[in-house]
């Protein structure tokens, strides 16, 4: 047959065509496989399910080794939205015991939640009951995209110290934004309030991860490389609290139906033995599925008890006469008075048309009896002599700054730095404050004399009052109060070991302690005069705009080797001797003796049953 050479050339067109196509495909493959890395990430996302292994959160023991907070496993239903395929919604709802409406609203909530992504695990439902968990686990293979995740719930052996212990909650967007370690994912738990919050980094432990292989239908096909790349979780560190949980429980029971706080500190170490804020709440309310609802109830503005407000360290109160031992220390240190300086008291301090009332006692008296009898006039005179002593200080303002700085050293006016969140600093005015209020040079001691007896502008937290008491018990130094005594396998932060010594001679502390001892043996605190324990104390009765006077007490014992320093503050409790002294002395007795003497049982009975709530004046907030 004749060969057509023209047509024969067409082999080059056909050959050229396939060569060009092959080249295009090779370039495409090169870009897909070598130049572009994103497919590797896609492949990993596809094939690997990184199942987070949550560590067990650290446990909490009290100072005597009693287990206070522990964990209970709970199961969350998790989902990866993009993996959900062909879900039989009704069957699923039936298994979980929820309605279709609940399912839809839960789905809608998840979509709105922080950190939502169709590619990452999202919590669909938390804290399944054991029954629901069992039922779901059996049928889980039918619901691709869903899996269960073991989590922990906090459990409490004692229904006490909710304000100190705190609780755990789901992280919110702010937590995620502030999470410098990139530890948290949406849906994780984080400590809220109390020790749970401040020791979060120790308690939370290290998360582990289990890398599972997952097929296209979402079914788990086993562990990747036999678990060679898995990371096992490390439990959080256990904490030993400085609290004596039994003492805490006892003090809480004494504060039932009263509003206020009790703080007890071991003076030598600064360890908080108990810290009561009353009214308190049941810590188990903030556990589990009902947490949100209960939290809203506790935090609600309509809840006049404000139980989440930790009065022991957030409440700023006028310290009243519990302020006087501090005054005595300053006056002695500054040389305004010596141990023999006596001031007159004619039922009060009368000077320049001003009268600060006082009650009946001998006159004139020096400092120790003044503490014993809680003489207002003595401390007003002392204060006046200091603030108006221009020869020494130049001006009232300068003298006031010296006065204020001593108080700062004694722990007032600034946060003490307790290891719990939300501590308040109280309030201590400075000279500028008065300059602004009255005009520069237009105020003098008499203008502001009420601060000398713990009234007026001065505010302190019960924790600060207890700390002052501990400082006196130590005769001149304190260690920053703290609620955690030890962290497993870690040393305590240095700030809770360090001694702070105010710039005041130890001998003045001895003198003030003696005055406080006299107050117990023959003064305002006689109810605290125990036969077998030498107690020293000081009452306080603070006028306030919320009704009846607040009842306050600070005290420590034993006198020569103090084991406990306590501050009691009962809102609208009246005289310091009415609630402050009995409660304070009962706490001291309970802690040191373990029990209350039979002849004092009636005091215990009275305190357990007494209520001060009726004396509270509740001002209705103006409604818009």
């Amino acid at each position, binding site marked *: 047959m004749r060969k057509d050479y023209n047509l024969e050339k067409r082999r080059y067109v056909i050959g050229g065509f396939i060569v060009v196509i092959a080249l295009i495909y090779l370039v495409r493959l090169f870009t*897909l496989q070598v130049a572009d890395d994103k497919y590797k990430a896609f492949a990993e996302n*596809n094939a690997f399910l990184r199942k987070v292994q949550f560590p067990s959160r650290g446990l909490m023991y009290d100072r005597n080794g009693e287990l206070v907070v522990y964990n209970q496993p709970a199961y969350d239903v998790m989902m990866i939205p993009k993996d959900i395929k062909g879900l039989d919604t009704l069957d699923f709802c039936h298994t979980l015991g929820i309605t279709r409406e609940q399912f839809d609203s839960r789905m809608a909530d998840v979509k709105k939640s922080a950190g939502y992504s169709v590619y990452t695990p999202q919590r669909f439902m938390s804290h399944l009951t054991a029954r629901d968990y069992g039922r779901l686990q059996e049928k889980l293979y039918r619901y691709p995209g869903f899996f269960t995740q073991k989590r922990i719930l906090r459990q409490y052996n004692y229904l006490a110290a909710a304000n100190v212990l705190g609780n755990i909650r789901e992280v919110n967007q702010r937590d995620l934004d502030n999470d410098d370690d990139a530890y948290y994912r949406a849906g994780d738990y984080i400590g809220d309030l109390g020790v749970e919050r401040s020791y979060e980094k120790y308690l939370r432990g290290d998360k582990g991860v289990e890398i599972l292989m997952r097929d296209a239908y979402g079914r788990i096909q086993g562990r990747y490389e036999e678990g060679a790349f898995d990371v096992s979780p490390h439990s959080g560190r256990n904490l030993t609290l400085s609290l004596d949980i039994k003492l805490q429980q006892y003090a809480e029971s004494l504060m039932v139906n009263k509003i206020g706080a009790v703080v007890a500190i071991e003076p030598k170490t600064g360890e908080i033995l108990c810290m009561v804020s009353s009214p308190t709440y049941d810590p188990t309310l903030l556990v589990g599925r009902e947490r949100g609802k209960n939290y809203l109830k506790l935090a609600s503005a309509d809840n006049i008890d404000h139980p989440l407000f930790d009065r022991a360290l957030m409440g700023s109160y006028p310290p009243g006469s519990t302020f006087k031992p501090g005054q005595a220390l300053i006056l002695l240190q500054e040389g305004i008075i010596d141990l023999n300086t006596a001031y007159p008291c004619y039922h009060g301090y009368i000077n320049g048309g001003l009268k600060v009332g006082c009650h009946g006692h001998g006159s004139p008296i020096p400092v120790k009896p003044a503490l014993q009898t809680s003489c207002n006039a003595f401390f007003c005179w002392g204060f006046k002599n200091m603030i108006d002593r221009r020869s020494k200080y130049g001006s009232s303002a300068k003298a006031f700054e010296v006065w204020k700085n001593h108080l700062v050293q004694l722990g007032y006016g600034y946060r003490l730095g307790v290891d719990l969140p939300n501590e308040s600093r109280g309030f201590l005015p400075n000279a500028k404050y008065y300059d602004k209020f009255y005009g520069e040079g237009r105020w003098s001691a008499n203008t502001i004399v009420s601060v000398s007896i713990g009234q007026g502008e001065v505010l302190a937290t019960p924790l600060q009052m207890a700390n002052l008491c501990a400082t006196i018990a130590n005769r001149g130094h304190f260690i920053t109060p703290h609620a955690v005594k030890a962290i497993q396998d870690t040393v305590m932060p240095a700030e809770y070991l360090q001694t702070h010594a105010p710039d005041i001679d130890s001998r003045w502390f001895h003198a003030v302690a003696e005055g406080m001892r006299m107050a117990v043996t023959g003064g305002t605190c006689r109810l605290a005069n125990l036969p077998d324990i030498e107690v020293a104390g000081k009452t306080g009765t603070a006028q306030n705009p919320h009704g009846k006077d607040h009842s306050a007490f600070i005290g420590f014992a034993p006198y020569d080797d103090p084991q406990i320093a306590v501050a009691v503050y009962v809102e609208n409790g009246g005289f310091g001797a009415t609630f402050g002294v009995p409660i304070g002395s009962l706490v001291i007795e309970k802690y040191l003796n373990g029990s209350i003497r039979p002849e004092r049982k009636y005091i215990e009975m009275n305190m357990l049953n007494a209520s001060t709530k009726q004396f509270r004046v509740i001002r209705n907030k103006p409604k818009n």
Partner: protein
Amino acid sequence: MLSGTSRKINSDPSAFRSLDWFTVVLYLLLVLAGVVSIYAASYDFDHASIFSFTEFSGKQLRWIGLSLVIGLVILLSDYRIYETYAYPLYVMMMVLLAVTAVIAPDIKGSHSWLKIGPVSLQPAEFAKCATALALAKLFNSYNFKLRSPSSYAKAIGLIILPILLIIAERETGSALAYMALFFVLYREGMSGMVLLAALAAVVIFVVSVKYVDPMIPGMSTGEFIVMILIMATSSLMAGLYARSLEVMRNVSILFIGAIGAMMLCNSLGLELPWLWIYIGLIGLAALYFAVMAIKDHLRKLLVCTIFAIGSVAFSLSVSVLFDHLAPHQQNRILVSLGIKADPRGAGYNVNQSMIAIGSGGLTGKGFLNGTQTKLKYVPEQHTDFIFCTIGEEQGFMGTSAVILIFLMLILRIITLAERQPSTFVRVYAYSVASILIFHLCINIGMVIGLCPVIGIPLPFFSYGGSSLWGFTILLFILLRLDSARKQFRN
């Protein structure tokens, strides 16, 4: 009837001596790489043996064994039977296709599988061979020239019949593979303009559907590109195909001037109906081609006229055409063109296969280490998407090696075709090459996201007896005919 001596000569005992071993080696390489890939693709964590017949790879090995037997039988057969029985074979296969379309059970919407005892076979795979032989015989028939309309009708009829029958079986993908035979018509004298027109149609279609966003008021980017392409192609055709540089120059000036004018008006903020202006200009150019064709007696300029008018008409009707496709077809096309992101629907396969291939990197994850493969992310992994396994586990090295082996095989077949003294063998060889080209382009194109998903296997690789046997028979008949090329006396 034949004497012993003549039988000896005619049966050509030297089939193995003149066999093209190079092709055989390429074939064996592909088939073995295929079975290894199938093993990897269907491997699950039970560590079953590669030889276990319950596994896909085990079955494939059995089919490879049978393929080798079939190949051997073909090599030992008389080379003349293929030409002699080409038509009866073709008729038989067409009947079988028709019967299959009627009696075959519904498997995933397709009626193309015949169950014979324990095996299911797909006649469409074998009909390729019969069609190729029939086409070869037609071209080899006395005085046949691809000139007259009747010769075109015969050739196209031979190709269209199996396409229609296979479409009736609801196996559109396999049916499309027969379109590859138009390459053969081109080699045997069909005008290249037909292929150009087909290419232009595809390009116009893709561009107009893909770039629908408006570029300037009244014209989309796609329409603009199409107009530019029509202008450029028609002026190039005037110059290079019709060999009238003068016409090309004049038309080019006209078109470049128009584009310049549009840019100027655009920057001045003047809105004109540019689409219609371009269409008018192209019409004007077409008229000019026609006038010059008559004046200078250049018949080829008339082809330019037809091309210009046809392209414009086609591009205007694309939107209408597109609307006439079934929604799932529209979807497949849109997804494969990257217009529609639909990783859960029609784009799922392609997306997953691209992830599998893309995650392989340069050297791959290693044999049996592919996670996408093992965890069944890619559907049809062992059949139509087998190329993913190579991509994931052997990386770019593996995929480029496979493409190069295929390229060598196809170029080798073209070489074989051109060395044949017989038109019959040449046409048959081009048929084999064309079918392989089509399968290769479409199959690999779809797994790397360059073509719509059309379910056709990768030759020699994909799991399945019918496809493997079909391609083996196709290739070995060629080898047998090639080895006997010296016996052909024309």
